[in-house]
């Protein structure tokens, strides 16, 4: 290692001026930048965001590409209606009913909902500028996935109406049933049976009122509390806005002074829990 030549040295600046508001947002199912599809941008749609500050849940609404080659307008009406109902149930109306111009609501955007991910270790965001590395601590990590809760509504409807399993209704029907096979009518019965038996078992274990165990009730309470919280709209600022610039500039530390370190390298080892 001694003959390892040092090529360059960058001073490291650290600033926590923006913490704890610096987040990392991950989009595990997306591998392209988050942008309005040009076809939708033409009609003025933009990406929007909203947050439930207490629960720390964010939603990003990305407009979809409405071109007929890649988007099924008819289907979007069905799903849009389902989503509207779902919104009403869960108190997550967007609030802007632009599409209610005598038309059915359409599914015009993909909603990505965030999950707060626990952080392992201390996360820092680093930017290299002018031969210096600037670090900012990252407060939260969110992972965004599209929410498709409106599909529940649809399957619920269809399950009631048809009595089928209903799971095929949201997509194209599968291959037509083979006439040689017996029609799958027995499934609902089986499903029902399973459900009943499962509930009974839970009752035995839970031994609380209503057949819900304490844990489950807590969960339900948490879910309900979250649903009751009101969404706050956020401006989704892309990088090019003036405010965005300001925020970005704030990442860079202004101070040239050397800071003293209070901790020792051994703190890392001692900081390991359980060791």
């Amino acid at each position, binding site marked *: 290692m001694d003959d390892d*030549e*040092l*090529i*360059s040295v*960058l*001073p*490291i600046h*650290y600033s*926590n*001026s*923006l913490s704890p*508001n610096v*987040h990392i*947002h*991950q*989009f595990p*199912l997306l*591998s*392209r930048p*988050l942008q309005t*599809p*040009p*076809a939708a941008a033409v009609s003025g749609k933009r990406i929007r965001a909203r947050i439930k500050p207490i629960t720390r849940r*964010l939603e990003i609404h990305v407009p979809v*590409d409405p071109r007929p*080659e*890649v988007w099924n307008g008819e289907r979007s009406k069905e799903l849009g209606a389902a989503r509207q109902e779902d919104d009403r149930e869960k108190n997550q109306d967007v609030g802007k009913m632009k599409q209610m111009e005598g038309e059915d609501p359409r599914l015009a955007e993909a909603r990505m909902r965030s999950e707060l991910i626990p952080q392992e270790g*201390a*996360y*820092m*965001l*680093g*930017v290299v500028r002018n*031969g210096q590395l600037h670090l900012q601590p990252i407060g939260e990590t969110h992972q965004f996935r599209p929410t498709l809760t409106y599909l529940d509504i649809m399957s619920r409807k269809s399950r009631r109406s048809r009595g089928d399993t209903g799971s095929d209704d949201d997509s*194209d029907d599968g291959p037509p049933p083979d006439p040689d096979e017996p029609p799958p009518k027995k499934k609902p019965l089986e499903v029902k049976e399973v459900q009943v038996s499962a509930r009974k078992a839970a009752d035995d274990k839970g031994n609380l009122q209503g057949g819900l165990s304490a844990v489950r009730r807590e969960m339900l309470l948490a879910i309900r509390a979250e649903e009751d919280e009101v969404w706050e709209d*956020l*401006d*989704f*600022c892309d*990088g090019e806005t003036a405010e*965005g610039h*300001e*925020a970005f*500039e*704030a990442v860079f530390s*202004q*101070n040239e*002074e*050397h*800071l*003293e*370190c*209070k*901790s*020792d*390298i*051994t*703190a890392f*080892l001692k*900081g390991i829990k359980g060791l």
Partner: protein
Amino acid sequence: MADGGSTSNTGASSTPSGTPGPSVPKAIGSLAKKPSDVTRQGSQRLKFVPTLPSRRKKEEVKQEAPPPTIPSASTDRGRGRGRGRGRGGEGRGAAPRPPPVEMTASGPFAMGPALAGTSARRSAPRSNFTPIVPLGPGNAAALGAGLSGAAGPSLKRETNVLVQKEIKSEVDDDYYSDPDEGVEIIDMENVRQMDWMAPESLRKERKEKKKKKVTQVKIEDPSSPLGITNKDEAVDIEEVDLANALDLSESEEEEELEDLIDDFALQGEAEQDADIRQERLYFFQFPEPFPTFVPNIPSTSPTTMSVDEPPSDSRPRKVSFAADVKPPGPDVDPAGASTGPEAEQTKELPTIDGVIGQLEVYRSGAVKMRLSNGILMDVTGATQPSFLQQAVHLDLQNKRLHIMGEVNKRFVVSPDIDTLLHAMELRDQAEINAMPIDDTNLIKMN
């Protein structure tokens, strides 16, 4: 010409259903949807026709076979060719494709999944706010492309609006024989470019020359995860496939090392455009607990000590330097130099701002962080995710969510073991020495 067994049609031409072909029993590809041709959803499965089809297939729907002239500007948004489910409707009887048209991928998607945190080298992080390319004149027509039967998906010519620096040379695409009318040969990797909604191309290992190399650590070219790559050397796809298996491990390492060096040592070469946000964002994972830093006893004017306030407050301690440099943006407080001689600043809440150490880049590719107080850390590349990661700033006071940019690379920082063990040893020694040995029964073990 009963060679109905064209490459894509496994079925015989014995069922020329509905084909208004010539009266001569020239074999025309069957238009019946074969199971292999159709996905479960009923939409047309896209087919890749790598060789010259023996005859015309007027109503073949599937082929994508581009002339090897997919133009270079990969920044343009791929437009035009309706895809995906649109194909399902086309089924049979679709009008013949218009003759192959140059299609360019435009816009930020053009480079495919490269944008999301890959280790690909990008001279400018295009995803950091490359402005969205406005739709070219040809795009409007693309929007109206009918699905079924009508004029077929529109393949409109697009203007290349080059925003991206990287230029892809198209000449080296595998050259296929001239496509028939209505058939277009497209390299599978370039599928991504065809349209905004086009599916992702799986990345291939490619040999390519890196554009910028600070150190010529390796001459041979590590793979590039870009789906669309610079093909400076004409490499056949088949050859690369074979090479994949062999070179994968080596090339990944090389690439990582090189990238580390390049990421940090590129200062000299930083030809940053006047564009915004050309700086790349990196993600560092430090072990807990992150060492606390306190400002030295400053020589500047002392200010109040309200250390415990979260940085979001605007405090009166805009100290001497550059307080006005910072725009009145969100929660900025350059109070790093505020006095804090007492130990109250051991918490990390107070605003800390300053130099905490240095990053050393070695020729071997090792990158170390030397922080004050003798803390030495190794920096290594972490697993690079294939998905999008954005660094954002949440401004609840102004109700804004600023996107600061995409995180290009992730790094893991870990303490240098030698230093750590040495320090532990010293500490243990110190503890031992500090122990008063007053009990005569105690035996010193060392």
